[in-house]
């Protein structure tokens, strides 16, 4: 091997260094949340509003623990029948799994459909004028408005919820995918062609990667749309398990702490996927592409 073998290559500083945590920001954020919780507890203790209308973090925490215990009981029961009986109640974990399962299917279909539609819209002038206009106008309808139709078409079934999720997310992703493709800098296409890339090779080696940063942004927005549609649909159609249903069952039983637990669960899922999952992917891409200093 020659001395300039690429594995021994000198790398410039920013790529090699691990990104350091900004400890100051972390401390400030955590303190802020702690202060909020303390304030919440104080306000709840002042009893301006009765606690069944505005429970403090202590009551909400208690219900949360109760939920966890019930789920542990369910888990034990599945492996071992000799557990003391507990009366059935809506399970937090199963609700989360149910909702995420619907997201998996609904969002998955939306991504496939949205990417395909987006590519078609970017490639064909005729489709852009026809289908594109239709998609743009359908996109202006709040997705939950499709639920009554879906209920009649698909009946009281998960399909109705999925239809709402898909209609809520797919069109937005079709539009953002089209934009991502149209915004590809022509220089990459010119360079790719002159280096000998054609058609499919050009698409998979160059166009895809050139569009990737914007594409991921569109997928993220699509996820948000899908998630909101799902929550709306689950709230309205509260006869099958799900996080949205958990929230509504809290309302039906006048169980305000449960409603708080459900809302915090919705928040936690949103933050996890938005910031941790998509945020990490986006940052990794932006750093590799050099879009972020």
């Amino acid at each position, binding site marked *: 091997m020659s001395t300039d073998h690429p594995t021994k290559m000198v790398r*410039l500083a920013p790529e090699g260094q691990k990104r350091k945590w900004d400890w100051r920001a972390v401390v400030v954020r955590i303190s802020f949340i702690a202060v909020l919780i303390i304030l919440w507890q104080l306000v709840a203790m002042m009893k301006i509003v009765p606690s069944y209308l505005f429970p403090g973090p202590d009551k909400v925490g208690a219900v949360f623990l109760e939920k966890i215990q019930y789920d542990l009981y369910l888990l034990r029961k599945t492996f071992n029948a000799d557990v003391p009986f507990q009366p059935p109640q809506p399970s937090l974990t199963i609700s989360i799994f149910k909702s995420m399962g619907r997201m998996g299917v609904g969002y998955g279909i939306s991504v496939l459909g949205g990417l395909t539609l987006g590519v078609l819209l970017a490639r064909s002038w005729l489709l852009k004028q026809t289908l594109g206009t239709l998609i743009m106008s359908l996109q202006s309808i709040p997705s939950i408005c499709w639920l009554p139709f879906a209920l009649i078409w698909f009946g009281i079934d998960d399909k109705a919820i999925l239809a709402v999720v898909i209609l809520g997310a797919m069109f937005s992703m079709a539009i953002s995918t089209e934009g991502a493709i149209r915004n590809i800098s022509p220089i990459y296409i010119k360079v790719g*062609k002159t280096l000998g890339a*054609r058609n499919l090779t050009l698409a998979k080696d160059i166009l895809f990667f050139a569009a990737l940063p914007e594409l991921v942004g569109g997928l993220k927005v699509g996820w948000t749309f899908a998630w909101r549609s799902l929550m709306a649909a689950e709230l309205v159609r509260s006869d099958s398990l799900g996080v949205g249903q958990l929230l509504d069952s809290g309302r039906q039983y006048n169980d305000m702490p449960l409603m708080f637990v459900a809302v915090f669960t919705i928040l936690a899922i949103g933050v996890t996927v938005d910031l941790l999952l998509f945020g990490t992917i986006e940052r990794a891409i932006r750093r590799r592409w*050099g879009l972020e200093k």
Partner: protein
Amino acid sequence: MEIQFENVSKSFTRKRNDREEHFVALRPTTFTVKSGEFFSIIGPSGCGKSTLLNLLAGLETADEGRVVVDGRPVDHPGADRTVVFQEHGLMPWMTVLRNVEYGLKLKGVPSMERRDRAMKYLRMVHLTRFAGSMPHQLSGGMRQRVAIARALALEPSVLLMDEPFSALDAQTRDLLHDELQRIWAETKTTVVFVTHNIREAAYLSDRILTMTGQPGGIKRIVDVPFPHPRAKSSTELSRFTAELHQEIKEEVDRVAMQELDEDWNPLTSPKRPPRDVIAPGEGI
């Protein structure tokens, strides 16, 4: 690997003031570039220099006539005619090495040989240490060096350059002129070089094609009568450049007359510098 333009013409429709208008980018044009030659094309902006190069690259097709490279008519882009553009166009998601290797990969060169060849050309532009870096970690001049290595790695029969140095600062440009002169001598590749920088063209070229302003066409083809390698500071070269400058200025003025208000004329426009002095912004 001669390049022949045989009666090649090209026109476009473009939008100006919200009106579609048909305009001729290139009048029927015929000329030949000899094998191994450093051939420059200069002219006022909008004269069709880049159109000419794109036709040769196969990125655009001629309305009439044909471009012939190595006896074969050009009908699509191909790895035998690689291009260095004004924008470096390095793929930001690939390392420097992968960028240089990419064309070879498309050609089906096996990975070890691909790497060796890419490294050979990175060595030629003095950037082997940065093979593992990402393009955004490099300076503008370094990126353009990589773009040159990438184009050369395919060992094309002709290297096309479309104002490759015009986005760089004067010092970097100077450095790259000397590098390009050396690389050209080393590889003996035919180079077709489009620029609006007259001194740059005079310094590097064997022959220079000057173009008329819109509609674009050949004004004349000038031999640069000095042996390589050249010294930038030589008086002969400066005098030669000044004369060419005058010739191009006539074209620039002619285009300006068409485009600007009637109260503009070349006599009232600020005086041009004396003949042997470097024109502002023209430092090569």
